């Protein structure tokens, strides 16, 4: 697709979206605004409400409360539920949802037929799209004659061929093996952006989310708890939950021993670790209320293994595993601190001693909750805080 043919993506507005299944609350007042052409990934564990939100956007499920607008047109709201076929969107399903009685070509032709694209043009567009996803030779194959990866490529072609403004992706890589995931991730990233469409993609895989997204929204218990760029989420998580869900290798209760100091990217503070009493400098994404304790979260990239006696504190090698370019270590330090997935090109022997150096950029100090394990998430992002990091101290905690 050439630059001139690019279609403008649709904007997406979700206000106070709620969904109940009987007594179970799947969505609890989600607010979200997505700019046209954005690749948004909704990240969350099982049961966080991401699939429900996506199905509500598609019109497959009906919202209990709240509104959804696509490109300025309300599609769901009080007394309103536009059926999926009138929402001008497309979707890639987790189980592909290819119609088994249609060939790959006919599956891809389907959206074009609904758009009343003339026969010859529709065919050439469908064939071109199948060629774009690498299936130009398999157009006449039926789904059961294709491998899982090929089937998902057909599903991708079907979603993109209609050049709609909004494309939804429901964990499209979850049924594929590692190699195929990487290939298809690249295809989705490239083709979705080329199409110019706004994309909403759900996954529970943090690395998949970070590698695809312009923006990532983290969902928990039916609430959107943070929305930002991958870098914002990684460097300035809004809560312990977000920090944990986006990848840490260690965490511990700590004592703040200095006043916050400004840096080019924000603020840092010195904290004392339990056990060893070592003092390390860590990033302070936001102020810690005086009444709350502090907790340190360590990203894997912040840990450097040194010779014994060097670094901030010592640790014993608990386990070591070969990881291609080097080794991943599990280390235990004083104060019941367990560091996992610590990468080092050098192999350190089991039960041997090493030194640990922590860099401030990957060490995050966040408020501890009542039980000392990290502050609970707030009640979700309110309207007007849809694209920036939220200061949870401004939001009353339950």
């Amino acid at each position, binding site marked *: 697709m050439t630059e001139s043919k690019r279609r403008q993506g649709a904007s997406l507005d979700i206000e106070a979206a709620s969904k109940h299944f009987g007594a179970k609350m799947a969505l609890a007042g989600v607010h979200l*605004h997505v700019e046209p052409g954005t690749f948004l990934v909704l990240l969350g564990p099982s049961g966080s409400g991401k699939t429900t939100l996506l199905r509500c956007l598609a019109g497959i499920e009906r919202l209990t409360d709240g509104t959804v607008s696509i490109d300025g047109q309300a599609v769901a709201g009080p007394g309103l539920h536009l059926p999926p076929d009138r929402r001008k969107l497309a979707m890639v399903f987790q189980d592909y949802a290819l119609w088994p009685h249609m060939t790959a070509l006919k599956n891809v032709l389907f959206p074009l037929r609904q758009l009343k694209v003339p026969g010859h043009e529709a065919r050439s567009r469908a064939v071109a799209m199948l060629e774009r996803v690498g299936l130009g030779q398999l157009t006449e194959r039926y789904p059961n004659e294709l491998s899982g990866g090929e089937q998902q490529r057909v599903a991708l072609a079907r979603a993109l061929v209609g050049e709609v403004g909004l494309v939804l992706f429901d964990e499209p890589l979850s049924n594929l093996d590692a190699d195929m995931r990487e290939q298809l991730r690249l295809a989705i990233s490239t083709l979705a952006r080329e199409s110019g469409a706004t994309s909403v993609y759900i996954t529970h895989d943090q690395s998949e989310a970070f590698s695809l997204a312009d923006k990532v929204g983290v969902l928990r218990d039916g609430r959107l708890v943070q929305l930002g760029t991958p870098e914002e989420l990684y460097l300035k998580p809004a809560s312990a939950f977000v920090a944990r869900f986006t990848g840490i290798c260690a965490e511990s209760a700590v004592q703040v021993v200095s006043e916050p100091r400004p840096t080019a990217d924000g603020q840092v503070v010195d904290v004392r670790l339990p056990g060893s009493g070592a003092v390390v400098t860590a990033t302070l994404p936001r102020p810690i209320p005086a009444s709350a304790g502090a907790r340190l979260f360590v990203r894997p990239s912040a840990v450097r293994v040194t010779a014994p006696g060097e670094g901030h504190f010592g640790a014993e090698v608990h386990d070591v595993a070969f990881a291609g370019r080097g080794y991943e270590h599990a280390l235990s330090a004083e104060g019941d601190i367990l560091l996992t997935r610590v990468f080092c090109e050098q192999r350190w022997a089991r039960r041997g001693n090493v030194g640990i150096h922590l860099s401030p950029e990957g060490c995050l100090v966040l408020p501890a909750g009542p039980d000392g394990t990290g502050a609970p998430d707030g009640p979700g992002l309110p309207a007007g805080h849809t694209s920036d990091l939220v200061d949870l101290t401004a939001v009353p905690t339950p």
Partner: protein
Amino acid sequence: MTSVPVPAVVRRTPGRTASLAGLLRRSGGPTVVWAVLGFLVLVPVGAFLLLGFMPRLFGQGTAWFTFSNLTQAFSGSVFRGLFNSLWVSVAVCAIDLVVGGGLAWVVARTNVAGRRLWPALMWGLLLVPTYLMAEGWQFLLEPHGVLYQMGVPSLWAYHLFFGPAGVVYVLSLTNAPFAYLAIAPALAGLGSQFEEAARVHGGGRLATLRVVVPMLAPAVLATIAIVFAETMSDFGVSSTLAFQSNFPMATYRIYQAIDSMPAQFGVASVLSWMLLLSAAVPLALQARVTRGRSYAILNGRTRSATRLRLRARARWALTSVIGLYFLLALGAPTLGAIVGSFVRNLGSPVAPQSISLYAYREVFSGSQQIGHATMEGATTLLSPVMLSTEMAAITATVTAVLGLAVARLLAARRPGRLTRVGDLFLLGSIALPGIVLGAGYIFAFNLPIASRFGLDLYETLPLLVMGYLATSLPTQSRLMMGPVAQVHGSLLEAARVHGARALSAWRSAYVPLVSKVLVFAWLLTFAKTFFELPISQLLYPPGEEPVSVAINNYLGNYHYDIGTAMIVIAVLAVFVVIGVVLGAFRLLAPKGWQHIGGARRSD
């Protein structure tokens, strides 16, 4: 954020989702569907069953509650009929477990020849009505019958056949497919790993068998439940062979009670209770044994069992035994019927001039009056065939459409309470003997209240079709439920998301996926309805005999040649319809529709 204006035209649009089940639910669909089924089955049969103990409720006596009908049912020949049905059912169960189970094992686990043919013949056997099987054998074995004419001494077999042994023999043959079809899938799913595990942990052949056989318990219990219920409720043999052998059976006793003057509805009702309760015993046994235990043996890693490689001589001996079985089951009655249709006055000494096409000419021309009272209204002798074709086609079409709706409701991911109750009701309806249903219809639609509601349906063709529907709908709905449940909801959702409206999505993304199921449900219903006997016998309007009734009347009045010619023509008519429908599907259905169910490519 600015508020988004909502177009007025959109506000009026009622909410719709991609799910048809959802559509049905919102429109009160389940209520309508279950109400239709309730009207077809529950109301007439319920009223009829209540009558046995509460005759005054229906103006049939003076007592509000009485056991007098029960006392009558447990006396003399009425009780003998029930007793005979019970022991015959037990015997048939035992035989079919061995025969059907044995054949299933041989096909699944040995290299016997014809492993594709035998299951197909089992399906063929399933379609043969019991009365046709009984009568086919009758023509073979009669004094001066087909075997006699061929010079085969068969008098000993005649004496054996016309009695309990013949009844058990015919019912064992016709019910064997139920045993086979219940046990074969269980054996296919029982991979070799369980046997291998027993063997590697020191189990000998016998110990391995002791470990593995209990895993087939659900299939064995299902076989017992189905075969027992089918045998108890059979009317085809009890009204032909058993009746002629002076061997009373329960279903024929019910028929006699209704057919007597005055009709003994009370006795028929109590006998129906007995029939239903006795069919419920094996079902309860099955539920009790399997409750709280898991017999799940299928998983993604199940490997096919290795086949026992028989030596050439053993292989051919086994193949011959199976071939002989099907020759007796299908070949012999077919031969009896075909030969019988060409011989005038079968049962008397045959001269060369007795062999003719006379019977076929009579059936097609209808010029000769047979002289039997029930024949008088018939315009031609072929008209029963035409009538049954019409009735069966209507029944099959309505059953396919309604059955699909019911199957969708049953297969819903979150079935409502009404659906769960409806499912239980359907299961009960499947076990309901046709004779009980027919009796219920006669009774209920003869009540003055039916007339008051404008339901003057007694002795009309619509009532006959309703009766057929009441028997076919529960069975077909349950049969369709499996394939329908396999159609993932996302396929319909995908069509809606990619721009198809509700009807268009249904037509383009759902109907093709269930098209084969619909075609086979239609064909199965058609064939079963075409030859259906008990409901036809009880509900046909005067002068409009279905083919099954006509055949029985001709044969019962010793017009063997015309009766057998009609059997041959009827069977051919069913084959023609099956051929035409399958051929039309093959020619007219898009290639993709026929592709459904093709083998999956392994990655």
